[in-house]
């Protein structure tokens, strides 16, 4: 089940604690999943009884940014969990951001 993603929108995993906020999104619906199952908009009741599918159970880390291969989607993980983020079967990867020197 694909969802429209807008910057600032928040979603949670149906199989664990993972929560994300959208930083950047492509136009149109995206089949965003966590643990292999469609994510749920924050505020909606998640389905029960699901577990992470094999290959989508590496986990997601709080504070990390996740991107797709096309660099069209960027998510910030606001709560970590045991399931991995993906678009369909394509796992999202950690954004490779060069740290900037602190200026504050």
């Amino acid at each position, binding site marked *: 089940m694909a969802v429209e993603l807008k910057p*600032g929108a*928040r979603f949670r995993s149906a199989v664990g604690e993972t929560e994300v*906020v959208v*930083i950047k999104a492509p136009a149109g619906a995206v089949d965003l999943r966590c643990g292999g199952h469609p994510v749920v908009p*924050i505020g909606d009741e998640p389905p029960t009884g699901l577990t992470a599918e094999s290959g989508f159970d590496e986990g997601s880390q*709080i*504070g*990390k*940014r996740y991107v797709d291969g096309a660099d069209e989607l960027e998510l*910030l993980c*606001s*709560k*970590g969990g045991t399931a991995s983020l993906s678009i369909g079967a394509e796992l999202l990867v950690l954004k490779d*951001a*060069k*740290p*900037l*020197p*602190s*200026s*504050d």
Partner: protein
Amino acid sequence: MHVGMLLQMAADGMGERIAIGPVADGTTMAELASRARRAGTLLADMSGERVAMVDLNSEAVPIALFGAALAGKPFVPINYRLSDEQLRDLVVRTAPATVIIGEGVAERLGPIPGIELVDRKEFLVRVSDPSVEEADPYAGDPDSVAVLLYTSGTTGAPKAAVLRNRNLTAYVISTVEFAGAGEDEAAIVSVPPYHIAGISSVLSSTYSGRRVVHVETFEPRVWVDLVRAEGVTHAMVVPTMLNRILDVVAEDDGGLPTLRSLSYGGGPMPLAVIERAMALLPGVGFVNAYGLTETASTIALLGPDDHREAHASDAPDVRARLASVGRPLPTVEVEVRGVDGTVLGAGARGEIWVRGEQVAGEYEGLGSAPDDGWFNTRDEGHIDGGGFLFVHGRLDDVIVRGGENLSPGEIELVLLEHPSVEAAAVVGIPDADWGEKVVAAVVPVPGADVDEDELRAFVRAALRSTRTPERIDVREDLPFNETGKLLRRVLREELADRFG
């Protein structure tokens, strides 16, 4: 995004780290979040539509900043150093508001309709009461106004710059790695809460997990002692602070052994000062940060490696970069444009324009930046062939002498090269023949004598004669505001009286 989420992430991911105060008994990140969320509940229940603050630096600053955001009300830190009348005028503009105040402020303000005063100490007691409900950290609207900052108004009446939650969070997410600070790191905050650097330091420190040590109000000896006692690793200073800090360090020869990173910004830094700092503090990485209130802090950086490379280089164009503000952040676009709006190429001087999600460019009651997102900083600058940005000063400060545009900054930097000059400022004053004429005010190095004619000859040798000040006022100090911004309007009036 909303700043409440940044705070809650810090509490979730680094709850046991010390957020504020000494390692032994500071406030943890989890406790800071709880206090801020209680403040969110308390401030939401109060009738004020804004949360203003007239106070020195303390733990109440981050609690009020985050608490106001969670209450859905703008946080408005106000300069406590203003005259009573100016302070009162600004507080009146915030009404209806809750105003958190430090000692002696109530007496200065007197009763004001629509203003409810809350003493800082009482505020801190109330937010520490566990029976107060903690506000939902995720409920905030990203589009809501997080902070209103009165710009320093060195040329006119203060305007309130509007910073929305999405501007501030865009800056933090793109520049700071979550939990990226080592557990041993500590930042000293000596810029006042009503300065954009005071706001950004709260957010960056929280998100990076860096412990914060507050200096109530800047004094160089206190600053140096605190850096040594608290094992401070990171600091941010405005230019007027740095030389005074170096004086203390040079005098007692104690160094700043724990300090790793020193960033500076908020005004032009004389080359001689940064070179002195690099020599006195060889273990420190220096960062020059350029940003404006309206851009939610830093938009360009000259990092430690850039400093070392420029300092060590024999190539004049590379060496010159020590006076640059480095390269734009990856998430920010910068263009230098001519007065007709065309984008200028490398080396050409023009107006600095900026675009990015952190750029607000909006003033209360005056509308926002154009729809295309580009904001005119009103700073004059150029970009060199390597992409390094140089800032020459405020366009509003440009002196127009006989049709020629002169940058005060360029003349000031030459004056500062002279061994007898400690501080210098150049302004234009009305002149019957030329429209404006160039005059300067200089403060001598302690014990030095400044010879006006010799100094004028020194400038003439470096620049053209049209850029040579016709008169130079030698004086004990310059009218700076407390964040190191020269009050040019004040100086212009004083020098017009003297030399006009």
